[in-house]
């Protein structure tokens, strides 16, 4: 469809403090409403801004500001929603996936501008540059999608498509040849278990996609270390923003919420960070017992040591406390020389102050938490935002089909959702024409007069 609703991140990739995701098309408001906890956007005036949260079912993805522009008073002259999110690719990608799973399409390069032109918003002189822009994308979207798919993923999608198509074709035959007793009459009761199996498969794919469930939900992480070892600077250089203020004056850091940060797609959920950000560290403030508790409940410990000094008793105790946990020892202040004597320990050398060695940290986390096999298998290649979004849309369609089947809605309605699931998968591989359905129909079933 040419007039579908499109979406894309309009801010550049990188570590900006804020990202803006634009949604344009007549379903913009209704799609965003489905993932936005806040005022009903349909009922708001144009050119207004609204506060709320983007959520996926119960899970809050981000706290956002949403600007709405009603047609025709928008850049594209269509209904436009702009979602301002916190920075980093991770949050933006999660939101894009959600939007796609609710029916938006990933915009092509320059598509907003192109729409603005086609809808008469831009004048003729701008046409040429748009032509170039569009032309630069020499492949069509589907071809491109195809190229992005590795062989195994393609096979996976095609197998799923085939399974759905078999059900759909069977129902179609039942409809078009109602009196044929050669063909099984599919009923809701027969279709339901098939749909459930499909949902399970799709679920597995979604779960195995990206880098594993734990990584996606975030790794509960605690940063420990003796006072003045540089925990706050580490945190700040990880967050790459001034959200947590590091200062000499005690009490300036009041942000008690757990911070969440994204290291190349690996989410660290930092717990008990409040203490770290005060001039008094967690050990001193909440005592060693509470610190123990924090360490126990964490999936990952980042133990910060000062490599410009020798290990003291507190360092030793922390090393001891964390020895049975998943931990990464971070030797800070590499700019000041190494006086540490740690045997049989792999240590990451960083300088939080100079932002050195941070990349290695994310690699170390991945190494600890991601099964090498998963990391190298093709399944992880399903990291493309559009693909995951589409898979979620497939799942949604299958769940609609399941609900209809349970409610004993006539089977041809159940089929509408199954066909939608099939078509969505086809949008991943670029293959889902009605001819496929007819080919399947006539190759599998003996029909005629």
């Amino acid at each position, binding site marked *: 469809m040419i007039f579908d609703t499109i979406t894309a991140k309009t801010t550049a990739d990188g570590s900006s403090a804020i990202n803006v995701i634009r949604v344009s098309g007549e379903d913009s408001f209704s799609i965003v409403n489905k993932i936005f906890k806040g005022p009903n956007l349909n009922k708001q005036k144009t050119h207004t801004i609204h506060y709320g949260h983007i959520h996926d079912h119960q899970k809050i993805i981000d706290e956002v500001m949403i600007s709405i522009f009603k047609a025709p008073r928008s850049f594209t002259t269509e209904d436009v929603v702009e979602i301002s999110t916190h920075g980093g690719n991770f949050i933006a990608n999660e939101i894009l996936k959600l939007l796609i799973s609710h029916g938006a399409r990933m915009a092509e390069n320059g598509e907003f501008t192109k729409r603005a032109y086609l809808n008469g918003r831009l004048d003729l002189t701008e*046409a040429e540059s748009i032509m170039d822009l569009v032309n630069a994308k020499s*492949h069509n979207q589907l071809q491109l999608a195809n190229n992005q798919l590795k062989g195994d993923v393609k096979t996976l999608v095609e197998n799923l498509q085939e399974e759905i198509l078999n059900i759909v074709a069977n129902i179609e035959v039942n409809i078009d040849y109602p009196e044929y007793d050669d063909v099984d009459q599919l009923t809701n009761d027969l279709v339901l278990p098939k749909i459930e199996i499909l949902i399970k498969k799709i679920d597995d794919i979604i779960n195995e996609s990206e880098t594993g469930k734990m990584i996606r939900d975030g790794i509960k992480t605690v940063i420990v270390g003796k006072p003045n070892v540089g925990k706050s600077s580490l945190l700040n250089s990880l967050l790459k923003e001034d959200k947590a203020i590091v200062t000499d004056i005690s009490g300036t850091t009041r942000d008690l919420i757990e911070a969440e940060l994204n290291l190349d797609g690996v989410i660290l959920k930092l717990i008990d960070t409040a203490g770290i950000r005060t001039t008094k560290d967690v050990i001193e403030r909440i005592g060693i017992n509470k610190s123990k508790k924090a360490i126990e409940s964490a999936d990952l410990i980042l133990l910060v040591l000062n490599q410009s000094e020798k290990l003291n008793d507190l360092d030793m105790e922390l090393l001891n406390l964390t020895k049975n946990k998943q931990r990464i020892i971070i030797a800070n202040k590499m700019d000041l020389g190494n006086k540490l004597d740690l045997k049989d320990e792999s240590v990451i050398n960083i300088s939080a102050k100079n932002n050195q060695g941070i990349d290695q940290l994310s690699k170390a986390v991945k190494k600890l938490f991601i099964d090498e096999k998963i990391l190298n298998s093709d399944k992880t290649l399903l990291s493309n935002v559009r693909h995951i979004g589409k898979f979620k849309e497939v799942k949604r369609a299958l769940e609609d089909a399941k609900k209809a089947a349970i409610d004993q809605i006539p089977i*041809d309605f159940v089929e509408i959702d199954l066909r939608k699931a099939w078509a969505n998968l086809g949008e991943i591989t670029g293959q889902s024409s009605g001819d496929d359905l007819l080919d399947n129909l006539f190759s599998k079933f003996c029909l005629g007069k």
Partner: protein
Amino acid sequence: MYDAIVIGGGHAGNEAAISLAKLNKKTLLVTGNLNMVSFMPCNPSIGGPAKGTLVREIDALGGVMGIITDKTTLQMKMLNKSKGPAVRALRAQSDKLEYPKEMLKTLRNTENLDLKEAYVRKLSIVDGRVNGVVLESGQVIESKIVIITTGTFMNAKILVGDTSKSEGPDKQKASIGLSNHLRDIGHDTFRLKTGTPARVKKNSIDFSKMELSPGDGFVHHFSFDKNHLRVLDKEWPCYLIHTQAKTHDIIKFNLNKSAMYGGQTVDGVGPRYCPSIEDKLVRFSDKERHQLFIEPESRSLDEVYLQGFSTSMPHDVQEKMIHSLPGLENAVISKYAYAIEYDAIDSRTLWPTLESKVIDNLFFAGQVNGTSGYEEAAAQGLMAGINASLKIDNLPPFILRRDEAYIGVLIDDLVTKGTKEPYRMLTSRAEFRLLLRHDNADLRLTDYGYNLGLISKERYDRFTSKRRKIDESIDKLQSMYITPTQEIRAYLDKNELMTIKGKTSLFDLLKRQDISFDIIETLADMHFDLNDEEKEQVEINAKYEGYIKKAIAQANKMQKEYKITIPKDINYHHVNNLALEARDKLDKIRPLTISQASRISGVNPSDIQMLLIHLKKYET
């Protein structure tokens, strides 16, 4: 000088001729044999899934197929009753002798319409525009418009075993020469094939060995004007049997004698959905048996039709095959099965009005365009007739969208994608089949029929009153509420219905699968002045509202694409950055809208974007 000449008095030609004449165009119908107008060379069955909806649409637009079916029906049945309303389908067995008689009567009673028995040899063409026909006798008849509806007659060959003869269906004379002439004037043709099973003497059959397959009695009617239905004392049933192991042995042993399997060289492509029995055995060798229906042919013929048993075996093998079937051990064959091969034109050389892109004022409709089936033919005939009339009057064409009618799907598929095998209408071809139901064909199309001048004022008034009653009832149901009083809960409980929580609108209540309109009337203690058909409309609108709304939203998006028109004379070489394949295809098909362009195979979304930018650029 005629306004229009229609060549061929089959299901397409007759609808075309009658609609033209009704629209006050002086029309001539030229056909080989007037006693065989709209005859049914295959099974005398009309309707079924998708096809039944086509008949309803033809009726809503003012065509005659529904009326003549109702007048000649032997049996009618509603199919897919256990499924949803979108796929329910009406099918009739019509009397194969009465149908042509009734059609001839209609043709003779149509003002402005002349009938002539003759074969056309060629067209008279001046400057790329048709202006009449030349008969085999050499006689020239002039007209502004010519519509070719020659069905399976052009260069037809009947194939049985190793014999092949130049002949049309049912031993009628083939049309020789016209397809050569069409090729000469630039219309490519290709060979298609279809077949029909044997007919058997009814009194030679032992029906006790067969399973009875009755109709629903005379409760249904195709035409929205139900007064045309002829009710017989008893309906004529069908019977069901299956092929036996013995049957399969005979076919396998004789396979190389079949015209299609070694008997002779056949160029024509046959339809996958209508295979011969030998095809079925070869392609589905694991199937132990195949289903066959015995269908009535006529009240005045001692003959039945053997549905599912079409073949091109020699006569002696056919005898053996039929005698191996239960109840047919002593059957006497009155007509042998045959395959037929014929010339069809490439439907992509037609505009969506069914007018030729090659020769102005020349239209094509029906099986000659590569379709199969009486209903598909009639639908095209009607649309060609309407568009020919509009062209004479210099009015904009009448093109139905894919979300408006199966007719729209049919013609769009033909002119956009073409077909390699005889094209049959299937519900799966319609992406908006939930909107294109047989029960709402009148609501979808009667306005068009009336505005075109094919539906009488009297019938239109009846229709608008129905529509108003439906709309008012829906409004009423939406504005009326019931609360779960003790009385109401007791009623629901007694009838084993789910209870209601809190105040509920009657419309929402009707959405429930377990609540019928009658229950609503009881619960609300009021009577709605609606007949069963009207109640059905209200109920469908309530029960499937969510699905229908989604489909309408999708359809609205497509309509936007339909609204962006492409000039007929666009030069695709001036459109920058089109892929080579897309440019060729677009140039050949010459779509009239962006929607149509987007359905051409080989034209990708990026090509459509290029086209959009081009159109915008040269808009002024």
